[in-house]
């Protein structure tokens, strides 16, 4: 969308924290990331939406952990050793995104970000702000707010 391009924080250089959701390599502005942890001592919440893995005690705060894969319409993420929670601050509360594994931090230039294709690794294009090409791979830049807002 045009106004996405126009907004102030999407110009110039950005550091992307990249991670895998299933097979798809995604990234998000590293400044949005509160922390990344591997706490898996979750309390399951019966009756919660399917994409909610459970809730977690993060230093006295209750954090909802969301299976990012499920939320994006993929298969349920299988919890393995490499799984991590990316804690982001969204609209005043902490939300944890469970991802398959963490990858590098990539320097990206907004000018080189291209509009997303219809589908990245099985994830619908509308969840992305754009794609960024590194030397070897394509990183889909996730629109975290949009992902979290949408009812799935």
């Amino acid at each position: 969308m045009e106004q996405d391009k126009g907004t102030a924080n999407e110009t110039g250089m950005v550091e992307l924290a990249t991670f895998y959701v299933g097979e798809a390599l995604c990234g998000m502005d590293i400044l949005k990331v509160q922390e990344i942890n591997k706490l898996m001592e979750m309390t399951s919440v019966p009756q919660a939406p399917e994409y909610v893995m459970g809730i977690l005690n993060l230093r006295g705060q209750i954090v909802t952990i969301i299976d990012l894969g499920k939320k994006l319409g993929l298969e349920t993420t299988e919890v393995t050793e490499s799984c991590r929670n990316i804690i982001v601050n969204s609209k005043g509360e902490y939300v944890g995104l469970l991802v398959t594994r963490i990858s590098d931090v990539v320097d990206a230039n907004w000018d080189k970000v291209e509009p997303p294709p219809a589908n990245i690794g099985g994830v619908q294009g509308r969840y992305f702000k754009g794609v960024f090409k590194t030397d070897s791979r394509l990183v889909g830049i996730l629109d975290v707010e949009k992902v979290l807002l949408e009812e799935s």
Partner: protein
Amino acid sequence: MTIQDDETLQMYLEESLEHLADIENDFLAIEENGANIDEDLVNKVYRAAHSIKGGAGFMGLNNIKELTHEMENILGKIRAGEMVPTPDIVNVLLDASDQLKALMNDVLNSNDVDISIHVKALQEVLAGRTPPAEEAPTTETTASAAAETTDSPVAAEGKTVEVETPDGHSILTPSAEALAEAHADGKCVYLVHLDMAADITAQNRSLAELLTEMDQTGSILASSVTLPPIATIDAQWSCGGDTLALLFATILKPGDINVLFGINPANILQLTPNQQLLTLEGAPAGGEPTMAAATESVEDTSAATSAASAVPETASEPVPEEVRQPEPTIPESAMATPQKNMSGTKPVMAEQETSLRVHVSLLDQLMTLAGELVLSRNQLLQSMTSDDHRASEIAGQRIDLITSELQEAIMLTRMQSIGNVFNKFPRVVRDLARSLGKKVELTLEGKDVELDKTIIEAIGDPLTHLVRNAVDHGIESPETRRKNRKPEVGQIYLKAYHEAGQVNIEIADDGKGLDGELIAQKAIEKGLITEDQAKVLSDKDQVNLIFLPGFSTAEKVTDVSGRGVGMDVVKTNLDKLGGLIDIESEAGKGSTIRIKLPLTLAIIPCQVVYTGGERYAIPQVNLEELLRIPADQVRDRIERVGDAEVVRLRGDLLPLVKLADIIGVKPLYHDPKTNTYRPDRRQSITDARETKTALFTDENETVPATDVEPASAEVNPSETAAERRFRAASALNIVVVSTGTMKYGLVVDELHDSEEIVVKPLGRDLKKCRGYAGATIMGDGRVALILDVSNLARMAGLTSVESSIKARELQAAESILRQKSDRQSLLIFRSAEEEQFAAPLNLVERIEKIKASDIEEVGGKRVMQYRGGSLPLFSIDEAAMVKPLAPSDNLLVIVFIVAGREVGLLAIGPVDAMETGLDVDGTTLKQTGIMGSAIINDHTTLLIDMYEIVQTLNPEWFEEQSLPQEEGVGSYSILFAEDSNFFRNQVKGSMEEEGYNVIEAEDGAEAWDLLQQNGDEIGLVVTDIEMPNMNGFDLTRRIKGHPAFGHLPVIALTTLAGEEDVARGKEVGIDDYQIKLDREKLLKSIYEHLQAVMA
């Protein structure tokens, strides 16, 4: 303005507002006293006004000074007795004090406010020209109108919200309702600032075009000039100024709005639901970088903030620094501006207290505790470095202690008296009653009761609602009241008091009350309950229907019942606070609403339970009791009614809800052999309590092939069903919870401890899970969910309506059952391993566990030391031909009272108490000390006759005990009606032993016939209650109603004398109740009653 400095002003304001708060109630008291002036009171108000005036003069607040001066003059006259404070005069004074409050809340602009109306009114009063009564409401409206023009926060509280454009040129006043509605509908509200030159003319468009466009995509809530209807605007129309400010509600998101309008984006600001202005990028509007020159912006910001901020001069100074930095996302500016904007545009907030008064002693206590905490920390650190475990343990314990004390002390600082809320009601009631032409007297009680600050704040609205309701709909007009022979003045009582760690608030009125029938009718119409449900509702249940969600919509209910407006909303609000509400009403006499509130919200005691592998916390407020039904009793105590399961609890039927079912998890049970949790496959609670075959087929058939559960039955055939059902693990754990309107049992896998927990909110993704009230962090760091028991009940489809129907159905079924056989509570125990005995539970005093070594043999008899005396001990085998007492180390002593003494019966476990339908065989196994036998739990059980046992072993005890057969007493016969052979023989035997002549009857009808045949002989009637053909109640009613027999005493025999039964019995004339197998008491009663007859 000669404002000295901040602090002085602040202090003055706080003090003055306090004075004002008191003044209001004092005025009301003065009004009430009328000509009978309480000089002290008037003096007090006078002094208050005077000190406000004095301060105002010092601060240069001329308007406040002038107003108080006029008030003071009037008060002076009242004090001197030159003027009688009529309601009209007080009205003027009250209006003036309202205006004063408004001035205080916006003290900086107070001098620019036009207060002439009030001054004039006051002066007129002073001159003796009382304003006509009709004027009262008009003065009020003008007062608020005057206040409105001055951005007064108080005035805006009513209906409108003020939104100021950043340049301060125009102030828009949309109605708060429309604004809230727009936000609630998910719309965005924008403040559009049109520059005629740049946005319209330069782009070659017409204003009409733009407005029409806006009208199509949303709605205009307010504008700086009055707009004609959009459809009628023609292309040439102009608003008559250079700029036009509009408040526009639309579903368009900030990103999209300007696509439509093509207006300079800097001129569109978004108004958030909390009244904050944001730019389209979402940055706070204050740091607006693109707006004109920096200097102008400075003014903008300060203008926007000036409304409520006390110190614009100082506030404006740091602003230029912020503005000079062009990035709107700079944290400082982002932090600073929204705060100011909040205070500037959210007038309602201004009323909330920002400071609290805390008693110095409490503060000292906190200080001491803080000191102690520091010391303990030092100790802990020291012991940790020196690896001294003992010392760190001690320090840990100390910290534990101090923390809880500190917690308590801090909680205390948050406690405020409910008077803060109550005090505004006299005025509310007075004004409302006046406008409705009613006479109402409000009595307040318990103003000192303290509650947590958050609760005090939150309870104001629901309480106001209830009080207004009471005045509006509860109290009738004076004429109606006179017609109904009630005093003209209606009474409303508002009462707060502590009870059981909760605060209770009662709102009672003596008005017309609620019509339950109409409410039920309405609920049926609305489809909230079915007609069948409505039929069985009690009066109280009917009235409580008004709390059902979706019940009330303003007018409709008012038409019918006159009450219940928004009651469900009140209830929802109270639910949020963890409070309970209950209403009692009697048509024509008034209603009483009771509210129960927790003292505090932040930390609440909870019961922790375990279900499906997770822990859950249930707030203690909702907790009634914990119930554990042993595995072997489940079948007896759980009953099925339709598809619902209920448990019998002290005569009441309690609907059961399985937590695992509602939240959709698999219940687990703990296997003590492997110390693991395994899925519990019982479909209904009573499953696996059937016969063995049923259990096995159940296991084989219902376990799906995919079930990974180790097939225990197959692998371990020795573990039979019988064994498992007696194991503690299969016991049923029930948490009995109440939600105010109903009580139910929540079946959980395990019960854990109760703990004090800190409530934490759940994230937005979980807001839709209604079963949880929040979450908390347990001692081990994991999270546990807090259950919302009222929502759980709703999710389970349980309503109080439904449960009461069930109870009724079941009671009906039960009474049929009861006709078949008498139910008797029995204590079951053993003496030797193989023989099971039973004794009537109501004869048992206590059960004690003792060691075999506690028994002493003295004088050929066994005794034990017990409560400072010697308790004689017996065993059944001493008197009856049964197997000898098992030689066990751990014995039980069942304490009975026989012949006025305590005696102990030696027995061994397991003991069990159960209620059972007795089918006693009084012949087959009858022998000395044994009344008979019955089959209980598949065992032949011997019913012991404690009386006979003791009599056999200690006949000498009874010599002095036996009742002297006085001349005459024995000459009467006793008519005895009892349908059970066993009991008839038993009781008859003991009566005959005493020398009475007994005429027996098998039921009430037969007894009635016998009575008519042998009327002269019979001196007393002993009757069972539950009998075929004619029950004891009917029999008694006939006897008592008959002229010849009316004098006969009737003693009723029961197995269980419930209070209800006793009351009913008394009603029909039963003279005494006795328990069937308590022969001593029965004989005593017979004796006493016979004597009375003779006398």
